[in-house]
């Protein structure tokens, strides 16, 4: 809250507030609510670990920062690569079951769970071919560009309250921008391969991603508007409590926009029915026609990494993130355990356990999203390039824009919202909903909270 904005202002004032220039800069400020502060006891957010290294171990600042960066990269890269291993196996199992067959059954004993690893070893052993016509440097670089872009998105994605590589107050913006960068690798691959099929794939990808970024961005604005923040941790925490607090149930606009988001997300990560860049029945294999071995597998890892990323993003933006369908952190697990052990609700161990459960919760939701993408892939035929662009420009963009406007309306006139579930705020801790970063108070806030928020902000400013 900016100083000077009072609770219960008339609508005209709120509107005027929307237009005040400094308001747009506000999300760039770091928010620290009381709820956040109480969680900092055992946060693995970068800054806190740095603090630990610097203060407790007396490491120099540069070493502390580098160590933290390396640790986080190591964890995340293992998540992305391990995730790819798992999802490729899952995809083969899901595809198998959908197609009335078994999928891999042998490698690794049961269920073929080591199949992907075996394939990975095979890919490692394959010859690394660079075609004569290719631009060798760009050709070799392209898979890394793709994978790096897909991987970088993970840096700003929280897995639980404050469990995040680098907590950014513009995390949503960052992730959307970074995911869009993956297309560079694809275009580079298509251009550098020196093959016409690859070029076709790359051009299709470029056209598709550029057009789908627009509705994707519009869709993401809706939950951002509800939360009043671009910080994913804040967005996640705003949905604490029962599933009725999830943003997808906030109002009709948010409900509709989730489906648009999902469609656009599938398109932006190049999955069927939008997998035109690698349409195997038309373009042989599209942009990765000329790739083999490990380089090819990097594209694959990037694809699965992106899939999981957009699904996790959807889970945070619309499905409560690490907050389950039932309150775990505020009312469920933590208070129960606290009562049992006699520990404080803020005790680091309990918070850690709660966050672990939240992390599992988020990943579970993301895996469901990825599974749905697989289900779609093995069911639907592929669209044609003009139909893909039509879907985007004629359906997704107007729908997303309409939802955006509707969301503005519901923000201005909350009482017109026909879905009251979210307003009830069942099971939500007070602090997480009442302190708002930005412009419009959603529900009446108590003067105490306003004061506290202002205090927090002024402290941050001075610091």
């Amino acid at each position, binding site marked *: 809250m900016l100083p000077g904005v009072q609770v219960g202002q008339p609508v005209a004032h709120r509107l005027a507030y929307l237009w005040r220039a400094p308001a747009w800069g506000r999300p760039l400020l770091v928010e620290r609510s009381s709820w956040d502060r109480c969680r900092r006891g055992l946060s693995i957010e970068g800054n806190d670990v740095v603090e630990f290294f610097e203060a407790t171990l007396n490491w120099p600042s540069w070493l502390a920062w580098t160590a933290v960066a390396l640790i986080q990269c190591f964890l995340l890269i293992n998540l992305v690569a391990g995730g790819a291993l798992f999802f490729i196996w899952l995809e083969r199992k899901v595809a198998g079951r959908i*197609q009335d067959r078994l999928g891999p059954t042998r490698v690794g004993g049961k269920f073929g769970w080591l199949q992907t690893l075996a394939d990975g070893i095979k890919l490692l052993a394959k010859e690394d071919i660079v075609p004569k016509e290719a631009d060798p440097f760009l050709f070799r670089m392209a898979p890394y560009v793709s994978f790096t872009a897909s991987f970088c998105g993970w840096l700003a994605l929280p897995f639980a309250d404050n469990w995040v590589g680098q907590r950014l107050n513009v995390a949503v913006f960052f992730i959307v921008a970074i995911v869009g960068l993956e297309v560079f690798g694809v275009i580079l691959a298509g251009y550098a391969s020196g093959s016409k099929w690859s070029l076709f794939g790359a051009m299709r990808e470029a056209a598709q991603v550029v057009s789908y970024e627009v509705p994707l961005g519009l869709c993401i604005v809706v939950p951002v508007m509800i939360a009043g923040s671009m910080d994913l941790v804040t967005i996640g925490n705003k949905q604490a409590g029962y599933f009725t607090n999830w943003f997808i149930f906030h109002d009709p606009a948010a409900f509709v926009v989730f489906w648009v988001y999902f469609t656009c997300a599938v398109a932006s990560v190049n999955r*069927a029915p939008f997998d035109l860049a690698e349409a195997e*029945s038309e373009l042989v294999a599209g942009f990765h026609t000329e790739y083999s071995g490990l380089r090819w597998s990097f594209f694959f890892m990037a694809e699965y990494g992106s899939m999981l990323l957009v699904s996790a993003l959807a889970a945070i933006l619309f499905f409560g993130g690490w907050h389950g369908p039932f309150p775990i952190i505020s009312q469920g697990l933590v208070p129960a355990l606290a009562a049992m052990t006699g520990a404080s609700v803020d005790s680091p161990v309990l918070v850690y356990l709660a966050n672990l459960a939240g992390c599992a919760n988020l990943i579970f939701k993301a895996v469901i999203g990825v599974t749905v993408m697989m289900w779609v892939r093995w069911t639907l035929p*592929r669209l*044609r*390039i003009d139909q893909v662009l039509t879907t985007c420009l004629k359906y997704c963009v107007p729908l997303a824009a309409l939802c955006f406007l509707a969301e503005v309306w519901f923000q201005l006139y909350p009482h017109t919202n026909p879905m009251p579930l979210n307003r009830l705020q069942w099971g939500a801790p007070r602090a997480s909903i009442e302190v708002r970063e930005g412009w419009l108070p959603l529900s009446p806030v108590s003067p105490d909270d306003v004061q506290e928020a202002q205090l927090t902000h002024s402290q941050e400013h001075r610091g």
Partner: protein
Amino acid sequence: MATRLEDPRVVEFDVRTDEMLVNMGPQHPSTHGVLRLVLRTDGEVVSEVQPHIGYLHRCAEKIGENLTPRQWIPYTDRMDYLAGMNMNLGWSLTVEKLLRYELPEKARHLRVIICELGRIASHLVGMGAYGLDLGTFSPFLYAFREREKILDLFEEACGARLTYSYICPGGATADLPKGWLQKCEKFLDEFAPVIDEYHALLTTNAIFIKRTAGIGILPAEMAIDYGCSGPVLRGSGVDFDLRRDGEPRYTSMYDGYAFEVVVQKDGHYPRDHKYPPVPKEAVLGDCWHRFYVRMLEVVQSMDLVRQGIEFYSRSKGDWGTPIKLNQKLPKGEAYLETEAPRGQMGFYIVSDGSSIPWRVRARSSSFCNLSVVSELCRGCLIADVPAIVGSLDIVMGEIDR
């Protein structure tokens, strides 16, 4: 003289995009074997398609001039290798026509059962592969699952699953084994409900309709002019099916069978009321209609097999005696076309009186169906090329012979 900016050529040069020659095939996932299409493209738009064939040419006709008719039967298997039984039938009927051989009643019904099952198996591949061309993998495996059951039946009847050499001049190499008819009926009972799955996955799927309806429209006159036949011809609304309109030697095989030619007449298919309606976007002669005709023919063939089982179990006598390996052929020549799954498959035999034919000729249905592809693909998008080629349902073994 220096070129000035106002010069129209400058603008043209700046705006112009280069045409690109793209080689689709012979190693390409959706050219159904070794078809090579040279596409002249402007971006995604295809301005010209030039098919090149012959990568699977095995000189079958030349080989036929050095073998007796019965020895040549395995070579017919390898023409349309997805419908080997129907190829066997075409050649056997042609040789029988030359020999003026009259087939026993039981052999006739046996042939109807076997060939209509072959048609179902062939259309299943055509349907599944078409899904593959459009980027959906699952229907392909659903189709193959059912096809396997037909191949099991064939295997039991003749010992082979792909190249049967079962039907031969004079009848067939063996009678159907005991209990085969019951198994066949069981298969038909299981298969009937599966067709609805195919319709749900493909025929009525919104994306499928978008990809096929109104694409590759083949007018009836052009279809006839290019010698297209089979589902391609009937998909254009031409009411012509050799099983009804062919030579007596062939149509007499279907004497007593009740069936209706699958073609849209007065805006209706014969089974319109039972099967998914024609979508608004579909134009007669487009890819969707060709696909739909195949789907309905599967149902029709099931019906014919049921009738065939009925007739076969009632008829007395034997299943015919295959001609001798070195049977002397009368001097003369004979040409006969049969309705194979992919269209009219014709065989021509010229004999000089010895046991080895002087000349053998195979008129391939896919050969003519493919020749129309450059007309259909003019001005379409790259993604439509597999859709159109797939809807013609070609088999390169039959085209190149």
